[in-house]
């Protein structure tokens, strides 16, 4: 076996390990930036690298819990984490993750786990991308009447949900939200259910849920989301390992890349703001959708099966490379400007 392939003892497959490091780095950058573990990229990514789908989910949950620890440490220093909201969300999420994991085992027994998970992914991705672009469109319409990017109001479903005042009521200071405690608990349960079923730490759903259903500012949503993903990822890892579906060696290799990537992604949130984040997020969701769609229907076209699978792989890895490059370049540009300004201020002070 060539040196760049590594035998995975539990799943029994040989994996191109530099691909794992790159996937880890990419998902670290993207995860730290968007406030998620990056499972929406990692699960299909690992599946494409050669892991069976249930191993891809377990391994993905393991690496994302480590990845979110790194990103949460950095976001906490920026003051972006609402611990009270995050802790309440954990309770509902854990119950949901367990239900989701049991559902996956049941689907595996039926022999339909791969296709069902990919179908659910596709539906979820369509709903999320629609929400993001509808939000942008709603905000842009207000520009005509003189609103700016800061003052324009997007999708505000949270306003209606805040009117449901079932006690106990709770005030989340960092997020600036006052609502019934049952709102985050209920939302987090369904986040956990989808997360445990699809093998995503929940960030893909948590971020829009925090912004559109709870009413958090985007940067607090990112930090608090990662805080929750850290725990749901660890719980997901535990439950998937108990069921024998985690490849620790692969997760550790991915963490090597993710540790550095998460720092870059998190710091980039200082420099990239507003619509740029939403556009990047919405477009990446569409990319993942196209990739999974091609993978799901590849076997329906026997002559073009390999071509469609190759295109699917190219889209996933192309997406990771594009987003990483964009975030890293913006982070470096922002950092250079900050250092230049700092130097100039020091010179003025000296003078």
């Amino acid at each position, binding site marked *: 076996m060539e040196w760049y392939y590594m035998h995975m003892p539990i799943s029994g497959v040989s994996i191109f390990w530099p691909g794992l490091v790159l996937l880890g780095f990419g998902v670290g950058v993207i995860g730290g930036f968007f406030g998620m573990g990056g499972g929406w990229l990692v699960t299909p990514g690992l599946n494409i690298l050669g892991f069976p789908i249930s191993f891809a989910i377990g391994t993905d949950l393991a690496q994302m819990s*480590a990845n979110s*620890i790194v990103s949460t440490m950095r976001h906490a220093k920026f003051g972006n984490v609402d611990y009270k909201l995050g802790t309440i969300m954990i309770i509902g999420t854990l119950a949901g993750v367990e239900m989701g994991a049991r559902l996956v085992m049941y689907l595996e027994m039926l022999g339909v786990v791969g296709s*069902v998970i990919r*179908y659910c992914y596709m539906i979820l991705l369509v709903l999320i991308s629609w929400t993001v672009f509808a939000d942008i469109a709603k905000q842009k319409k207000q520009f005509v009447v003189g609103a700016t990017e800061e003052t324009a109001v997007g999708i505000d479903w949270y306003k209606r949900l805040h009117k449901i005042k079932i006690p106990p009521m709770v005030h989340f200071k960092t997020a600036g939200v006052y609502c019934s405690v049952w709102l985050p608990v209920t939302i987090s349960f369904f986040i956990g259910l989808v997360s445990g079923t699809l093998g995503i730490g929940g960030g893909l759903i948590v971020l829009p849920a925090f912004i559109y259903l709870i009413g958090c500012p985007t940067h607090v949503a990112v930090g608090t989301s990662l805080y929750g993903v850290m725990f749901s990822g660890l719980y997901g890892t535990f439950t998937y390992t108990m069921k024998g579906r985690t490849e*620790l060696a692969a997760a550790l290799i991915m963490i090597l890349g993710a540790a550095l990537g998460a720092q870059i992604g998190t*710091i980039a949130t200082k420099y990239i703001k507003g619509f740029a984040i939403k556009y990047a997020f919405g477009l990446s969701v569409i990319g993942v959708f196209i990739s999974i769609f091609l993978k799901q229907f590849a076997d329906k076209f026997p002559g073009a099966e390999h071509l469609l699978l190759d295109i699917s792989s190219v889209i996933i890895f192309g997406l990771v490379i594009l987003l990483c490059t964009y975030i890293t370049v913006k982070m470096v540009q*922002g950092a250079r400007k900050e250092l230049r300004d700092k130097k100039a201020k020091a010179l003025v002070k000296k003078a």
Partner: protein
Amino acid sequence: MYTTHVKRLKLAMVRVIALPCLLLWFPVSLFAGEKAQPLNFIADTNGLSGMELWYANLYNSNKFYCALVTILVIPIVGFILGSIADFLISKTGLDLKSRAK
């Protein structure tokens, strides 16, 4: 007033519960096959040594301890590597404590 809120909440709950159930169960009914037994994997220990061999044996003998070890190793490695990366980034001179530009 309170009754109205409860009614609204109930309606919202029904919608929130119904949608994921439909999303999850509709594809199942389309693709459901014959009932089968859960799949059990055995780690291949051939050619393994040291920590890898120990972990693979633990996986084969006791999934609970294996899961405990996994959720201890993952955050520890994450924390150590994260702290190293944090230290390296802090050397750049960037302000890493505030979001203001």
